[in-house]
């Protein structure tokens, strides 16, 4: 694996029983990338994210995180790797019985020896970084969807992760909130040098933040395009990608043939 590679996926196949969701998936995510996993609904984007984050074991293939073959390593090693990752789920996945501060403090209490005061300071900083200063004592049910996502991001950033995964970050957000979240993702990437992996089909986000990407095709069940999303738009490798990146405005003629 090259020195700049953060994640490398080789010959990945994921199946649910007899149904093969994806096959022969190969790609590399480099350090500092904002890497977009895109594709139509049902193409397996979220499942691929579950494979990368240790929630779904692949049927075949290898996932290297750093130099470690993740799925071949033992549970303790997997746990160690996962601690270096942060994940923001579609809903924010905040623990509903805890305040925002308790949510962000949770990984810190679990894995560090900081005192309660130090944890409190870190929590305040992380919440401030995502624009939620002063919301420490709010419960998830008391804040909006966009704020939940930002709070989830603060929790994902709690342990200064090397990689942060985002599952459909703009889903359910108004355009302004979605733009703010996109800006935040770019800011985190630039200021902390964090590698970002985003699963999305929101074109505005894809073009705004993506530095590299893969396209999962619904029909062939594998990757049919790789590269910078803007470059893929200017020279699409196939019609499906062109239709996807232009919301079906271009590429329909060839598809009809």
């Amino acid at each position, binding site marked *: 694996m090259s020195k700049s590679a953060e994640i490398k996926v080789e010959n990945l196949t994921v199946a649910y029983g007899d149904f093969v969701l994806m096959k022969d998936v190969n790609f590399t995510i480099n350090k500092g990338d904002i890497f977009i996993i895109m594709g139509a609904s049902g193409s397996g984007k979220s499942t691929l994210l579950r494979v990368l984050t240790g*929630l779904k074991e692949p049927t075949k293939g290898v996932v290297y995180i750093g130099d470690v073959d993740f799925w071949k390593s033992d549970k303790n090693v997997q746990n160690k790797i996962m601690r270096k990752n942060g994940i923001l*789920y579609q*809903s924010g*996945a905040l623990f509903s019985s805890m305040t925002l501060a308790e949510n962000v403090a949770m990984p810190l209490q679990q894995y560090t020896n900081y005192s309660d005061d130090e944890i409190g300071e870190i929590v305040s900083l992380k919440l401030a970084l995502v624009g939620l200063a002063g919301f420490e004592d709010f419960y998830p049910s008391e804040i909006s969807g966009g704020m939940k996502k930002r709070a989830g991001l603060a929790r994902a950033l709690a342990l200064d992760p090397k990689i942060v995964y985002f599952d459909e970050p703009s889903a359910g957000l108004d355009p302004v909130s979605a733009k703010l979240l996109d800006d935040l993702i770019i800011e985190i990437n630039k200021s902390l040098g964090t590698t970002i992996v985003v699963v999305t089909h929101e074109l505005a986000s894809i073009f705004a933040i993506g530095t590299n990407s893969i396209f999962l095709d619904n029909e062939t069940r594998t990757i049919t395009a790789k590269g910078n999303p803007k470059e893929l738009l200017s020279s699409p490798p196939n019609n499906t990608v062109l239709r996807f990146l232009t919301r079906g405005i271009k590429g329909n003629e060839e598809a009809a043939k």
Partner: protein
Amino acid sequence: MSPELDYNWISGDTLEIKISGDYVSFDKKAQKDDLYKQIRHKTLKNIKFDTRNLGRWDTVLVVLLYDIVKTAKNKSINVDTSNLQESLKRLLNLAFSVPEHKTANRKNKTDILICVGEKTINIFNSFMSGIDFVSSSFKSIGRFIVSSATMRKIDFLFALEDCGYKAFPIVTLISFMVGLILGFVGAMQLKIFGAQIFVASLVAIAMLRVMGAMMTGIIMAGRTGSAYAATIGTMQVNEEIDAMRTMGIPVVDFLLLPRVMALMLMMPLLTVFSDIVGILGGGMVGVLMLDLPLQEYWNATIDAMRMKDFLIGVFHGFVFGCIIALCGCYYGIKSGKDADSVGKATTNAVVYSIVWIIIATAVITVFCQVFGI
């Protein structure tokens, strides 16, 4: 204008289908069957439509046309839709715009051997997953005892509150009623023999040894076990459990420990409380219905109470606490990610808690019998 469905062979290989009138809620099955018989004719190569006299129509006509076109396509028959109304053509084009996904068709497994085999494998897998869960739960409790597993104190206190004093009113009501029923049923028989005083012994022994714990267990299964399953199931829906796993937080320690510990602690106490209230219920029957003097009833109750019965009852409570917490948490964690799954998880938690409570009672009773306890 009444709807009409007719056909006409305009040559040996071309069929014209005539649709006229107001084609609304058309249900003349015989005419349709006759038409499909023509479509299956071996010589048929082309289908045309004549809708010049078509009036109003609804989705039934679209369904008919869709079926005809689909059947014709499967038999490689040409369908000329040019004579159809524009809106009908557009609807048909829309329906056929995305080809049917062959992989989306579920296999129709009618083979009984396959069904039995799959069911057997599922039952075995569920059993193994249950064993795995119980063993990881006890390992977690073990780790907690040697201080390597942590749980949030606040979660434990909330769980204690929920399965503790908040359960008092319902446990009081049910236990009092059970004591009352036991006393009443006993009194009816014992009165015949003039042995009313033995109602006190009957109620005391029954409540202490098993009924107090069992009734409390059943109440707590419905009240607390179901709440555990619903809470954890909803966390599953909200991806909270996925978030925990990806943060490397041990889900069993975090979710199960406070709940199991709270129920293991509170169930014996609730059992003792239930025993007392049940005996009071029986006492009410003895004193008010059988006219037994209060002092005499009290003395008979004290005479009947033995420490071993009391301890067996408390042990029942402890075991039932474990069962309820484990069933509630297990079905919650195993819940799917939709509302229906959470409902099923809650039902399963209650049903299996009660089933296992009855099995455990039977096992403990036989064990006590064999060892003369």
